[in-house]
């Protein structure tokens, strides 16, 4: 195979402008593929990371109806429940109205139940002692240049006193691993602060988070829902993963959309590349005929064609996927709050597409070569 490389190389260099521009247009398609497919792969990775033992209880009719706060204690007493707490939250913005971020309000036990939120030593104790304490994620803090010790005003939901300005004191900054990096766009506050200061109904909770005994998630979900079935607010309990899947679906059918766009663009580029390949082959019919008359078998010629299209596609893919990785930190946050970096698995997916694409592009030229006699070929027909 190696000995054909000089032939392939000289074929690609025959019309350098055409080869480069073809690679660039393939690159554009792969950049799109990289960003969009990478994003859905990121969603998959995010879902896979979701806990199967963490349960999420909400009002069955609609989550925004809420439940009485007494539900937390009642859930705690259900057999098999290891930990239960509630979380509330609001959206808020700092200086720039256009950039709203999430502010989850949490209760004690939160940092034990969510180990993906990583705190520096001693930060937790400090957080619980100060009512206005806040812990922003690393990327949010960097965006606004917040430091530990800063006192910041955030515009959020109306307060009992009628104002919408919430004062916070930053006591720490949290980190996460890469998969949960989206969490870093949020800022954690105390549940009590929100519950007592917000003007909406106090002591109404919207979620109960439950850590279930390992391997018994379904059974315990059922138990919780049965317990509240005849109360004023029947519940619906799902594992964290099921809930996340529902959320993703509700945003819109992303998977379908991405596949449609990526499919259309790759199909287009496939036609363009195949067209270029056919054209370059037609121009070299006499050369291939010479090779044939030297005794090159059709297999060898097919391999040369394949290598040529593989070279073009690979060059384009390397360009496009690198561009996608480089652009991701700017582009992805514009599109979703969860996946902000492209996963490594994208590379393998792209390589698969390259192989498939180059094989398809080589089919027609190879067919032509196989059915062309040496005499016709030498005559340039």
């Amino acid at each position, binding site marked *: 195979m190696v000995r054909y490389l000089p032939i392939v190389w000289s074929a690609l260099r025959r019309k350098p402008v055409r080869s480069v521009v073809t690679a660039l*247009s393939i690159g554009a398609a792969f950049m*799109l593929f990289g960003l969009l497919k990478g994003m859905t792969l990121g969603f998959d990775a995010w879902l896979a990371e979701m806990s199967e033992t963490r349960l999420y209880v909400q009002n069955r009719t*609609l989550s*925004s*109806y809420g439940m009485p706060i007494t539900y937390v204690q009642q859930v705690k007493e259900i057999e098999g429940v290891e930990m239960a707490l509630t979380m509330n939250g609001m959206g808020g913005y700092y200086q720039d109205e256009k950039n709203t971020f999430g502010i989850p309000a949490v209760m004690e036990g939160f940092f034990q139940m969510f180990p993906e939120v990583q705190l520096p030593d001693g930060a937790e104790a400090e957080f619980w002692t100060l009512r206005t304490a806040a812990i922003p994620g690393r990327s949010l803090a960097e965006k606004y240049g917040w430091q530990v010790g800063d006192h910041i005003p955030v515009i959020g939901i109306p307060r009992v006193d009628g*104002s*919408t300005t919430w004062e916070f004191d930053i006591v720490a900054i949290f980190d996460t691993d890469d998969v949960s990096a989206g969490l870093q766009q949020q800022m954690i506050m105390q549940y009590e602060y929100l519950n007592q200061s917000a003007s909406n109904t106090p002591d109404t909770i919207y979620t109960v988070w439950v850590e279930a005994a390992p391997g018994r998630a379904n059974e315990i979900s059922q138990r919780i829902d049965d317990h509240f079935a005849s109360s004023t607010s029947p519940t619906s309990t799902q594992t964290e993963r099921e809930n996340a899947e529902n959320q993703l679906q509700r945003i819109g059918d992303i998977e379908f959309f991405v596949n449609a*766009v990526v499919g259309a*663009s790759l199909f287009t580029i496939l036609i363009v590349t195949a067209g270029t390949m056919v054209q370059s082959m037609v121009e070299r019919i006499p050369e291939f005929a010479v090779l044939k008359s030297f005794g090159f078998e059709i297999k060898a010629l097919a391999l040369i064609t394949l290598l040529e299209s593989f070279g073009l596609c690979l060059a384009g893919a390397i360009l496009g996927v690198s561009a996608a990785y480089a652009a991701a930190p700017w582009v992805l946050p514009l599109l979703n709050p969860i996946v902000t970096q492209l996963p490594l698995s994208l590379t393998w997916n792209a390589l698969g597409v390259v192989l498939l694409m180059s094989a398809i592009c080589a089919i027609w030229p190879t067919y032509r070569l196989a059915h062309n006699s040496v005499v016709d070929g030498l005559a340039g027909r």
Partner: protein
Amino acid sequence: MKQAIAVTWINLQSIPRRIGATLVMVVGIAGVVGVLSAMLTLTQGLAGTLMNSSSPLRAVMLSEGAHFIGVSSLSPEHIQVTETAPGVARLADEKPAVSRDVRVSVTLVGKEDGIRKGVVIRGLSPSFFEMRTDVQLTGGRMFRSGLNEAIIGEQAQRQFAGTDIGDTIDVTGHPLQIVGTFTSGGDWYESGFMMDAQTLNAARKTTSVHSLIIWLESEAAFTELNDHVMAHPTLKFQALREPDYYQRLDDAWSTMRRLLMIVGSIMAVGGLFCAFNVMYSAVSAREVEIATYKALGFGASGILVSVVVESVVVGGLGALLGTGVTWLLFQGNTVTTGGWDASVVHTMDVSLWVLVQGLVAAVGIAVLGAIIPAWRAVRLPVTEALRH
């Protein structure tokens, strides 16, 4: 000029000889324009549905700092102050044309995809229906106040299961019966339910509303209303012109538009390279022909124009094909764009305007892609080209 037309005409007639490469460009541009027009149809339909819901003759009252209705809350005192404000239009009985706006969401299952999505139930005052004469009952009857009854928009009824007249849906433990259907000129209201505000508030056990809809005496009367609001700083509420309010809402749905920008620009770059490539080989294929023109004393402009026009014609065909495919796939489809608690249902319409935008994009790509190949054609050394 005559030369340019002649050369261009001869060139266009020669396209069938280079049909392979030309088709590549048609497909390339069609792919770009097809994706672009599908996304344009989607975003513009959404924006249209939201903007249809607004009128410059109406204003919206919200809590101070609330950037959308869900986080706004107004008390009876706010309502009273608003109803006595100057600039507010009057109903037939001289009462102020102000409607309460209360909204709760329910989740309903989509008929096609089986996914649960949020649908808005709006509680409105009788004044709303007196002022909005374009709201038409299309089936069943109007809801009665005091009873847990609602009417549903036709768009919502098409999209969600279990929403026929006579069906009941569960709202905070109260069954709500659907008694009629309505249209309201393709605005956002049609994506949800309407019922009586007081009845809905009784179920919510509250007297506060999310916002107020105010009909103004004239567009200019907004200033009077706003001054009146400003004169009550302790109440901490704000008046917004309805178009401004819906514009802001539309911004909140802007993810789709950002996606359009990103996908559109990357695909346009790809299309540009494709056009360049095809025109470049078209010029290569025409080397002898172009050199002959030159030898005959034809000017540079004719040759230049012939290359650019070929590119534009081929690109235009691609745009027509792309928009055509989009039209075949999506025309008349109803789509639901999900917010967290409020879906917007609209019908996809691949309009002439979308076609025009697609054509503009295709022509832009075609001209840009043809510049360098055209330049090369002009600079082609005659003797060398004729030697082939």
